[in-house]
């Protein structure tokens, strides 16, 4: 069985696999980019630890389903999936590659630790269209739980900003 592989190799192969599974709501990001795949705990059975971005994120079910399908298709049928809430997901776990993909996709990536400490997202976002820092918040909530709606004062384009939590 594939899961008889040494732990380090098994873990590397599963993470590599999930680096090609897209987030259902922001498909430019993989589940690994998003930082929600936390660990593969040794078995038996080996257990994949997944953490949700938001408690009520409607994508959670779809994410678990796509992880299951990817694991099964690659022969990792007996890897179990477990949801763990603690430590709570933070946008600091979005990978550097993920941040660049968000920017290229037209979503302003979240700031890292420094911004998180602020009670509000008061730091101006950088417009992903024209790069201007002269931007303003239109709405604290956007099209998905993880985003807010911003507007560029320079090029007038509205854009999504990943909320920093």
């Amino acid at each position, binding site marked *: 069985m594939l899961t008889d592989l040494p732990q380090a190799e098994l873990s590397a192969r599963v993470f590599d696999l999930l680096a090609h599974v897209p987030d259902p709501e922001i498909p430019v990001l993989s589940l690994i980019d998003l930082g929600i795949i936390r660990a593969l705990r040794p078995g038996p059975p080996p257990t994949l630890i997944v953490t*949700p971005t938001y408690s*009520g*994120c409607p994508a959670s079910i779809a994410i678990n389903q796509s992880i299951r399908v990817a694991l099964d298709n690659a022969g990792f049928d007996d890897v179990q999936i477990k949801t763990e*809430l603690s430590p*709570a997901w933070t946008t600091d776990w979005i990978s550097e590659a993920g941040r660049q993909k968000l920017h290229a996709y037209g979503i302003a990536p979240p700031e890292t630790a420094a911004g998180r400490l602020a009670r509000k997202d008061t730091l101006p976002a950088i417009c992903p269209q024209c790069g201007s820092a002269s931007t303003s918040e239109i709405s604290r*909530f956007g099209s998905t739980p993880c985003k807010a709606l911003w507007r560029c004062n320079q090029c007038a384009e509205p854009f999504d900003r990943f909320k920093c939590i």
Partner: protein
Amino acid sequence: MVQALTTGLGDDALILGHRLSEWCGHAPTLEVDLALANIGLDLLGQAQFFLGLAAEAEGHGRDADALAYRRTEDEFRNCLLVEQPNGDFARTIARQFLFSSWQELLFRALAQGNDACIAAIAGKALKEVTYHASFAADWVIRLGDGTAESHRRLVDGLDWCWRFTDELFVGDHAALRSEWDARVHDVLAEAGLQVPKPVRGIIGGRDGKHSEHLGHILSEMQYLPRVYPDAVW
């Protein structure tokens, strides 16, 4: 103890989440519509976690869905504040501000508590409710410091909700009162509003004694799973 606490917190989140969902498609602006729906969604997620834990603590083989959809109103343990009708937008904001401010303080304490499962849910939800409290406080200031009409409506909304706030601090939650009072006072002062005069508090939700509104909420929320018990998503 765990069961009572998690049932109360789960029911608070479930019922307020349902109330907020009633705004979907009816809010004053698209942005507000998105905001209230998103807050409701966060609350539904929290409800699922807390009620899952409550069902486990109960030990009768029920799950979160069974608790949400197969209990009658006298078995619900939410506070009375969350089941109050939405009223106008100002009253909804008043309710959200008073409730989310309390939830933020409570979850901060629970995240440091002894029960690891409750701490995990509270620690996760704390990030969400901090954002809700900040959103609601912004709107309290905007409405209170806005036009004569927005000011008047917010005063009415706060007056309506105020009698249900004592219940937030019964029992173990009494320790949260002074910090909550201070925060509410600060935001209302910034909004140009007085803290409502003390009124006789109405309590009972934590003991299953609810206003008539809860039955109407449940009749809508539970209709489908009760009529089609085998329905799957």
